[in-house]
């Protein structure tokens, strides 16, 4: 019996020839990540061990991105814990304001995470790096603390579900629409404890930015990881970024899957996930008339170059509805700079959007765009839980950048096809 890509990466990091679903292993970690919410707890736990050094200062990343630029005194204290820890233990990959970005856009961009890696992060969207053909999963602060100490962590080898996407993508349909459709299909615990492997002719042609947004939301189906088979598109992306040895793994032809879903993309239209779960996805034509108070374009799901280009294409020479606020957040400083060079920032500002420095900010109801009671927002982010963006009596709708831009212009949930 062959192995899936996920099983192969886990086996290699546990120094085993073979692993099987359900098996408990202790595996070596290539990269461990924490942010300004999760790292302070991890640091507190780590320091309780009384160790003089971390397992490898080059393999730990600390990214203060959630409440930064510091939104209040308490947040400033949290970030200071990260900064002081990074200095004390000579952590190379600490990213200060001015260089930082939203962690899951930043680490691939900097070439820190590589194909074939085993990555853990104290952030649930750490599954994003599966887009590179790495095994990458979210954990808690105590898990992060233990990895900072010994460079290893225990895992239960997950079963894998294979998703095969076939057909031709319709206009305005992106990776975000494919993943929202998929979560709608299997539910928010449809892949609980399992690996989601994204394959098929549609995926083989899908750009890296779209792959990142799909892998990012694997956790929204309860998955342990989401993963893509690395190929020439991956190679092109990591070229000039990755500086250390990496490995491309592939699933064997006779690998075992707990389930195989074949998805015909011909009939998938741009999706909108209704409150209050990502599984409440429907085609935009079935959304009905829903007026909005705010639109957010950004986040670790959709704050990358391609997302901004799509949004700018739609917003060019148009104005944001006077009943609504549009907030655009490039996910990293590099993306911000590139968007400026391409004239996208000018398009956003001319349209009447607020453009923010990179931050997770509004996605988790932190700052930079909080909703009042009764308000509705559409966001290119990944969660629409109760109170996610502010008041527990507000609502969040999830969609890709095309729907977000069109909705910002018309003031209600709309498709670019609705624009005259």
């Amino acid at each position, binding site marked *: 019996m062959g192995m899936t890509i996920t099983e192969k990466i886990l086996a290699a990091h546990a120094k085993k020839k073979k692993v099987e679903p359900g098996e408990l292993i202790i595996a070596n970690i290539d990269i461990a990540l924490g942010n300004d919410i999760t790292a302070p707890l991890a640091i507190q736990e780590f320091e309780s061990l009384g160790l003089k050094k971390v397992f490898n200062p080059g393999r730990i990343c600390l990214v203060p991105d959630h409440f930064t630029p510091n939104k209040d005194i308490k947040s400033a204290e949290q970030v200071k814990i990260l900064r002081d820890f990074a200095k004390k233990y000579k952590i190379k990959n600490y990213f200060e304001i001015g260089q930082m970005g939203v962690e899951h856009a930043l680490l691939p961009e900097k070439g820190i995470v590589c194909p074939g890696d085993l990555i853990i992060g104290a952030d649930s969207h750490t599954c994003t790096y599966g887009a590179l053909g790495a095994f990458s999963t*979210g954990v808690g602060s105590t*898990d992060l603390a233990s990895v900072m100490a010994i460079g290893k962590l225990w895992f239960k080898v997950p079963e894998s579900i294979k998703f095969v996407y076939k057909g031709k993508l319709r206009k305005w349909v992106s990776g975000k629409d494919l993943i929202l459709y998929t979560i709608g299909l299997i539910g928010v*615990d449809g892949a609980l404890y399992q690996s989601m492997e994204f394959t098929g002719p549609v995926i083989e042609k899908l750009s890296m930015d779209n792959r990142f947004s799909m892998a990012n939301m694997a956790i929204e189906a309860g998955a342990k990881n989401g993963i893509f088979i690395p190929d020439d598109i991956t190679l092109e992306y990591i070229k000039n970024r990755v500086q250390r040895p990496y490995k491309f793994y592939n699933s064997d032809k006779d690998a075992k899957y707990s389930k195989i879903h074949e998805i015909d993309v011909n009939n998938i239209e741009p999706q909108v996930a209704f409150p209050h779960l990502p599984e409440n996805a429907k085609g935009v034509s079935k959304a009905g008339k829903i007026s909005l108070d705010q639109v957010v374009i950004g986040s670790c799901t959709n704050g990358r170059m391609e997302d901004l280009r799509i949004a700018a294409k739609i917003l060019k020479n148009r104005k944001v509805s006077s009943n609504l606020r549009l907030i655009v957040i490039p996910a990293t400083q590099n993306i911000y700079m590139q968007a400026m060079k391409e004239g996208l920032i000018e398009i956003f500002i001319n349209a009447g959007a607020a453009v923010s420095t990179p931050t997770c900010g509004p996605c988790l109801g932190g700052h930079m765009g909080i909703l009042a009671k009764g308000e509705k927002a559409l966001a290119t982010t990944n969660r629409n839980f109760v109170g996610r963006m502010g008041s*527990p009596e507000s609502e969040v709708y999830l969609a890709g950048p095309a729907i977000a831009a069109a909705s910002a212009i018309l003031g209600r949930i709309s498709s670019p096809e609705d624009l005259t």
Partner: protein
Amino acid sequence: MRITGKTWKYRDDVNTDEIIPARYLNTIDLNELAKHCMEDIDKDFIKKISKGDIIVAGKNFGCGSSREHAPLCIKASGISCVIAKSFARIFYRNAINTGLPILESPDAVSGIETGDNLTIDFLTGEIYNKRTDKTYKAKPFPPFMQEIISSGGLMGWVKKQ
């Protein structure tokens, strides 16, 4: 170890934003976090519970973010145990790592209502509901996880490595 407590029952897919909203995550002070436990699913939760009470919930409890503040604030609020039909993966790990007792038992959850008095034996995984006079058995933890629990959580286990 046996505990007895009164139950508070919730629906499927209770997420970590409901357990502890992100707007309070600018601190790691557990007493401060406990004041807002379950606030976005039940705003009076902290006022009505007593020490030793038990949370009972449907499938996929603790879905969403990886914030360990979720099991930590449940524990700090005085809740003695969470029983659910199933737990989201990261919450499950975090609960074990931080020593919040959790039990998985779809049958028990179906047979429990808010206000029931339960007696739980953590060694056998038996859950007794006084109102219905029924006993349910939760899934036992795999031996490796029992080792983490008996080491006093993950950091205790790490110290042994």
